[in-house]
């Protein structure tokens, strides 16, 4: 009899917890990053024009998303410090943030790159790259680990750029490869968006207009190839120019 009562009580508590107050129920929350160019889904190896007017094709766009926080109405935050995602021009970039979210929220914040807790080889939280399973975003299998130098490439923007401005893209030397990295190049994106968990999946979508990374960046006169080995490297200022456009790249949140 006592046992039955305990079960009934337990079930009641579970139902109560799940139902919440004011119609709130646990929801799964996803972040979906849509890589775009000219307002349309980004196509690799397709002609686009950079903001500075250079004919351009992308062959790879890949960047890390980390340190995600869902910001509640009361300014409390649900923070996910150990979750890392790799947005890639060849994936759907739908990332499950949390399976059990409950409450009213007013925004989201996420970092672009790999924060120093996982990127600094001497950091106490640093995990050697070989400890990640190959399906983990931070696995070297994604070719975002420097290998000869500790740490991760935060973003790869690679492709062809018509730097001779003759309308032809396949000429020798007209490739570009911008690899960003190092803590000085880590950027946060924060967007306001109201949502409430009601039991259904919530997919927070954001468009990333990739060509905007090249705002005020002239591929004809600025560096076409930048892979600095640290923040003192002569190519690092070019990396900063690119990542400083991050806020322009990401649009508003929608579902």
């Amino acid at each position: 009899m006592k046992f039955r009562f305990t079960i009934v009580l337990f079930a009641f508590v579970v139902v109560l917890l799940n139902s919440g107050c004011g119609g709130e129920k646990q929801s799964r929350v996803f972040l979906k990053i849509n890589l775009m160019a000219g307002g349309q889904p980004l196509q690799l190896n397709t002609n686009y024009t950079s903001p500075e007017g250079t004919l351009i094709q992308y062959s790879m766009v890949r960047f890390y998303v980390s340190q995600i926080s869902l910001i509640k109405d009361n300014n409390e935050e649900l923070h996910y410090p150990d979750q890392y995602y790799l947005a890639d021009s060849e994936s759907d970039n739908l990332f499950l943030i949390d399976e059990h979210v409950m409450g009213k929220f007013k925004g989201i914040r996420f970092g672009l790159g790999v924060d120093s807790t996982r990127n600094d080889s001497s950091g106490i939280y640093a995990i050697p790259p070989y400890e990640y399973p190959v399906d983990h975003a931070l696995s070297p299998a994604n070719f975002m680990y420097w290998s000869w130098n500790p740490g991760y490439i935060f973003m790869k923007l690679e492709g062809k750029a018509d730097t001779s401005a003759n309308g032809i893209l396949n000429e020798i030397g007209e490739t570009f490869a911008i690899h960003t990295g190092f803590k000085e190049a880590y950027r946060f994106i924060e967007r306001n968006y109201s949502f409430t968990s009601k039991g259904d999946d919530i997919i927070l979508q954001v468009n990333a207009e990739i060509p905007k990374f090249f705002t005020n960046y002239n591929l004809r006169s600025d560096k076409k190839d930048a892979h600095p080995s640290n923040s003192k490297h002569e190519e690092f200022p070019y990396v900063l120019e690119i990542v400083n456009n991050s806020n322009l790249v990401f649009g508003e949140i929608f579902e």
Partner: protein
Amino acid sequence: MEKSSSRANNMLFRIFITECIIIFILLSCGNKVRQTQTPYNLQVPEGFPDMPFPEHNILTEEKVELGKRLFFDPILSADSTISCASCHIPEFAYADHQPKAVGIHGKTGMRNSPTLLNIGYAPYLFMEGKVPDLETQVIAPVQHEEEMGLNLRDLLKRLEKHPYYKKQFQRAFGEKPSPGNFVRALACFERTLLSGNSSYDQFIHGDSTALTEEQKLGMSLFFSDRLSCSQCHGGFNFTNYTFENIGLYEHYKDPGLKRATALPEDEGKFKVPTLRNIAITYPYMHDGSIPTLDSVVQFYNMGGKHHPNQNKLIKPLYLNEKERKALVAFLSSLTDRIFSDKK
């Protein structure tokens, strides 16, 4: 009747419980059944210090055996043509005779392949020294498109399908192949590559006949203040593991340490290599640009090309021919014949 029935029931119950316990043990262990690990008895050469190794990767016979098989297996390259041993050839003291490493499809790497003998003592890896241990280093050549060009993901698929590796990873680690145990196995094998039984070693450990008179002259020059070779190439492994610019060029195509630090004062600095087995690891320098040991000695004799970062010890040595030959003869006495014959 009742008694015997009760006894039978009791017996059945005991069998049932025993089976449950066995099933529970098997299920709880699953694939994690660990075989007995056999500690590897690493015999360091006389006069060498104990080898440091990470606590998470204790040497065992099983890991070393697995690592050795991996090291010599071209399964590690994208087109299955290149193994670690393609550039680190045992007969050549685990280096090769190419100016620069040659990877899949004949692609040329950026630097000369270093010897792996005594590599377990290296406090850091690569010529910029930014990789902290052998475990981390292993990933780079496997995935590098100019070396083996194989994604770790694809490599693990191959290893999981391979009957030997499937079994040996279980024996060595009690689990299927993973990036972590793959690099650990290779690192363990590399730590067993030791060399310290050259004529020079035999001489300093009491065999006065191990060196010729010419080699002895070369040795006294090598350790002299006049030449200062041992200032950088000193210690049990003939390297102080620092980074030096020896004035090989006025203008370096390969920035060396500056590649990692971006500091102008690091341009043209490279990790000081060991001189053990140097006679069989030609050609020389980071780019394999000097073909013979004699020409290396001639280069040092001239005093370098006067790069701004050139180490002050690199200056004209004014060696005569006899001294040059003696120095080369001494350097040749650092070859470990027992090791190179044993492979």
